[in-house]
């Protein structure tokens, strides 16, 4: 997303006295952001209170009522072992949301640090780190994930590790560019002549001035992280089969294609959550980049 890096230079950092008013103005202009915020908040609440609102235990089997269609007994039907899909979908939020956020936070931090060091150090270090970044971008992420799970075994934690390993390169690239820009500013030179150490300058003088675009990119990226996690577990590189994880539930549901409730509801759960974060991210970009406002 090339427009991201331009945000830092073009966003006026004016501390408006009536922030709440401006927020209301933007929300009214971007109703999709408001909708996204509501849906995302709803899912977070569901994730927290799932154990108390789910009608049935997510792993409880009811073999007498296998593959029951959605109805009075099971709101969203039951699966091939008679487990309640509605309860499993609610519980699924407890796996997917933390996993997606972990990927974003760890992966982007890794990228920020690598990119910042490359940009600040320059020379050979920069060259090496950037070639490494390109390499990681070119190598198919799914293969790295397969390699990680081949080495560590498939489970939720390893799926997150696999995604973190492939998540950092874009952040490293953007941060490097920003650090190069900021490095040339006079206040950095001032810090140098005041005798500040390289470490201090990088982390106290330069980074705070280029962190905003990384945070925005991370927000835009949450949806992609969630969807990638679901894709990994869909192909069996995530949590174990019984787990109420949405991607996993869809992939098991394919074998029961005519029992559409088995794959549709967990699939829609992923889609609604990802869409909510994409609504937020898209609106955020429009709000923060004045050139796109068309005023």
């Amino acid at each position: 997303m090339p427009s991201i890096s331009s945000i830092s230079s073009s966003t006026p950092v004016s501390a408006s006295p009536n922030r709440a008013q401006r927020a209301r103005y933007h929300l009214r202009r971007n109703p999709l952001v408001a909708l996204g915020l509501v849906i995302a908040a709803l899912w977070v609440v569901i994730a927290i209170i799932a154990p108390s609102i789910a009608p049935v235990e997510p792993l409880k089997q009811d073999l007498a009522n296998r593959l029951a269609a959605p109805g009075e007994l099971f709101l969203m039907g039951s699966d091939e072992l008679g487990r309640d899909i509605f309860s499993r979908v609610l519980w699924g939020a407890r796996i997917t949301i933390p996993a997606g956020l972990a990927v974003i936070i760890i992966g982007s931090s890794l990228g920020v640090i690598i990119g910042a060091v490359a940009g600040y150090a320059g020379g050979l270090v920069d060259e090496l780190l950037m070639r490494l970044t390109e390499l990681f971008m070119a190598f198919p992420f799914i293969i790295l994930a397969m390699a990680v799970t081949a080495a560590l075994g498939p489970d939720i934690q390893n799926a997150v590790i696999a995604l973190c390993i492939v998540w950092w390169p874009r952040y490293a690239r953007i941060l490097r560019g920003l650090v190069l820009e900021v490095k040339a500013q006079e206040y950095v030179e001032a810090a140098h002549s005041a005798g500040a150490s390289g470490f201090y300058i990088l982390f106290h003088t330069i980074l705070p001035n280029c962190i905003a675009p990384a945070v925005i990119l991370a927000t835009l990226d949450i949806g992609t992280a969630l969807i990638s996690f679901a894709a990994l577990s869909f192909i069996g590189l995530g949590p174990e089969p019984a787990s109420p994880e949405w991607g996993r539930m869809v992939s098991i549901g394919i074998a029961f294609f005519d029992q559409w409730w088995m794959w549709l509801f967990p699939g829609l759960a992923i889609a609604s959550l990802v869409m909510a974060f994409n609504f937020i991210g898209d609106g955020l970009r429009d709000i923060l980049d004045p050139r796109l406002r068309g005023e």
Partner: protein
Amino acid sequence: MNFLQYFLRRVLLVIPLLLGITMMAFLIANLIPADPIIANLPANALNDEDTIAAFRKKWGLDKPLHEQYLTYLGNLLQGDLGTSIKTRKPVSEDISHRLPATIELATLGIILGIFLGVGLGLVSAIWQDSWADNIARVIALIGVSFPVFLTGLILLNVLYVQLEIAEGPGRLDFIMRPPPNVTGLFTVDALLNGDRETFVSAFNHLVLPALTLALYISGLISRITRSSLLEVLNQDYMRTARAKGLRERYVIGFHGMRNALIPIVTVIGLSYGNLLVGSILIEQIFAYPGIGSYTFRASTSQDFPAIMGVSLLFAFIYVGVNFAVDILYFFIDPRIRVA
């Protein structure tokens, strides 16, 4: 800078990247499995001393790591990617056998996706904040938000099972025989053979999986088209173009799109990076016998040589496509020629 200089400079940048990729694949293949012999040979060959000795010799496993890499590279240059544990055939043969199916699917999907994406993006940018913009943006957001496996399942269920207006899984109707193999692309081979019926069947079977891929890609493309075109539309030269009395169609098409094209082409190049994941998921759902389903099977059966072979293939495709994008920049953006 003339074209030859630009071209050679790009080639020089690509070569170390390709070498790096082979090195990475080599390291993953050698460091991750506890024992490369167990990872690369079928279980029943592990008791056979001769097979093990032959495998050791071929890949230089008794030599130091850097020599092993050179052996690996030498084998690679001869097109030798090892032998699949699952199919017992050379991985390169498996790949050449299955790649055409995926190329056929991906080509149609990407072309559809570009048309759909650029179209939606144009509508969005030209009529910014209108109802048309909102509809186009919601379509784009659905495209990127719905996991491809869900889109595929819904399309399959609605268009094939319920409405019966599209063909279902596979590459052909199951009573049909594949056309004589020339390119491996069923549609092209059927046409070459003058076999209209097979062509229609092959094409119809491509529609749903290609549409699934297209919906996903078009979401990415239309978002970037909208934002980069919006950026361009406010520029002074656009006003100048209008002031000269050019027709609006011309202003948008030649002055607007030309300048908005760089980010769009970049995203199209980068979206090839998602192609492997996309084809694994889509081929799984449509029971489509391409590279994606091959990778899926390799992954579930721990077929290490096959996994590494496919990963090299896709890393090379990704580098190749982005090399082509770099070359395109030269023609799209005259500023590069001056730099």
